[in-house]
């Protein structure tokens, strides 16, 4: 019992404090302007174009990474399920990005791959006579999406590959006897069989993707402008760059609400699928 209370306190106290601060004027560089703010922080937030941009970016980032990782993850899982020489090594290589820290992988992408002068991509493009692109300046959000997808693809692949391998091979043979080619087998057997695993991948990734931070911090710092700022980065910027704890807390509350809404729908749809 006491442990449960400690645990509860440990979870509740920061939450309550966040909510509390979100109703206070609380700026670190301006201690005089303290006191109850009512909904001012929220009003300030929703009227701030940065907030809406961040919200949109968060959703775009989440949606794109989910589509990319689940799409390619499924495709690769099916491919890696076929026997071919060197399959085990290929699997290992495909899984390995998962073990790289987000900060490190972001640095690798920034400096080795996408750097406008030294990056492998620009070198390759110059080699074929194309004008290299400054990825983080011209396509900041897309670049972040690429990095985050690269980090999460192995996770999706791992879960989906396990699921593909658990498909009963007699079912596949029955489908072959029924006249199903590779494509029909994929849509009528593999995909329905994977639906539960896809649900799990989507749910877990969503929880982490709503809070992507290191990749943005290391590469674009949310810029240029607010082009690659998501909610997590906006909160950080408000709190530690503008010292506005009240505003940051309001953003945090919005993020919590958003995460809960998404989680609610996901859990419901997955729970329904588990029943089937």
């Amino acid at each position, binding site marked *: 019992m006491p442990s449960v209370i400690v645990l509860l306190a440990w979870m509740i106290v920061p939450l309550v404090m966040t909510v509390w601060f979100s109703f206070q004027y609380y700026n670190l560089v301006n201690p005089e302007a303290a006191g109850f703010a009512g909904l001012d922080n929220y009003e300030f937030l929703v009227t701030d174009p940065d907030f809406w941009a961040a919200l949109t970016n968060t959703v775009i980032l989440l949606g794109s990474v989910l589509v990319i990782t689940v799409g390619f993850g499924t495709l690769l899982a099916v491919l890696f399920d076929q026997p071919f020489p060197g399959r085990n090594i290929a699997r290992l290589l495909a899984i390995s990005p998962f073990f790289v820290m987000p900060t490190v992988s972001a640095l690798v992408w920034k400096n080795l791959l996408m750097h406008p002068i030294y990056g492998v991509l620009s070198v390759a493009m110059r080699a074929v006579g194309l004008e290299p692109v400054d990825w983080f300046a011209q396509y900041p959000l897309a670049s972040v999406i690429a990095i985050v997808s690269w980090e999460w693809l192995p996770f999706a692949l791992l879960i989906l590959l396990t699921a593909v391998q658990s498909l009963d091979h007699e079912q596949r043979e029955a489908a072959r*006897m029924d006249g*199903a080619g590779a494509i029909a087998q994929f849509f009528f*057997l593999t995909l329905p069989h994977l639906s539960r695993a896809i649900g799990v991948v989507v749910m877990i990734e969503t929880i982490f993707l709503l809070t992507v931070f290191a990749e943005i911090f290391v590469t674009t710092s949310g810029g240029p402008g607010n082009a690659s700022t998501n909610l997590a980065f906006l909160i950080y910027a408000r709190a530690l760059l503008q010292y506005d704890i009240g505003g940051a807390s309001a953003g945090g509350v919005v993020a919590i609400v958003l995460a809960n809404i998404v989680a609610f729908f996901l859990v419901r749809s997955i729970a329904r699928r588990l029943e*089937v």
Partner: protein
Amino acid sequence: MATLTLRDLRKNYGPMEVIKGVSLDVADRELVVFVGPSGCGKSTLLRMIAGLEAITAGELQIDGQRVNELGPADRGLAMVFQSYALYPHMTVRQNMGFALRLARVPRAERDRKVDEAARILQLEPYLDRRPKDLSGGQRQRVAIGRAIVRQPRVFLFDEPLSNLDAALRGQMRIELSRLHEELNATMIYVTHDQVEAMTLADKIVVLQAGRVEQVGSPLDLYHRPENLFVAGFIGSPQMNMLPATVQEAGPSGLAVALASGTRIVAPVAAGSANQGDSVTLGIRPEGLRLDPDGPIGGEVRLAERLGGLTLLHVTIEDGRQVTVQIEGSDLTRPHETVRLSVNPVACHVFDQSGRAFTHLLKHSLAA
């Protein structure tokens, strides 16, 4: 409306030969059963016929056409798997209609065929359920229904009843017989269950280690086994095998002596047997009778009373154990000494290589 011909079929997995040259003719509307011990290659052979395994060598013909190179869907066969292999996320109706859907059969016709199959299999109340909401027997019927709907040239079954309990198995066995009659279809059926093989088959193929040991009607195999393996494999309880020595060859049969010296005359052609050769005398359990004047003496070890049948396990004079099957409820008790006589018709003699000597008596039921 289909015949099947296997010409010296072979299958290798790497350097290991699993099917070592199987030749067989399956006539139209015949129900052929493959039996054999575990690992003998029954499933492999069936899957080669189905097109799920490539044929290493030899030729497979359906209706006289070579089909080695055709894919499983193009051979016009349907298979019922041991695990049923139903598609879990589809309803019974969708499961049964899947092949037709892939073949772009119009919906109305598809539904008509599924309904027809459901009627034959008494599955109508379950058409909108998913497989997990069905009992084992019902799933089995759906798997059969999925095969029927396609109107295949040949039905293939791989141990379809082995996941069912004994009572249901008996029921499904009768159902399959009825289905075979009703559909007038050619069927190949793999099992390691004797009773299924004996009761269902028009023709049994006994396989061992990738080779055909004998092909024949169930009673053929029972009464005229060509070798020791078939004699021991077919029949339950097993045939009694006793080592013996040839004493003399006469026109009425071969006289052999058991280790105890007991002389028994078996009505088989002597062939190349010489006096003094070691042979094996095989006697079916129902070929032994309790008889106070019988030539073989022994002591009852165990009596199994099944009601309609009694099985006595008797240790005879040379120390061997034999099984005696008696009609009705016999009251002989363990540890009683008994004497046994032998019905010559149920006697078989095998030479040292295991080949049977030809029987002189024509069996009334065997072909």
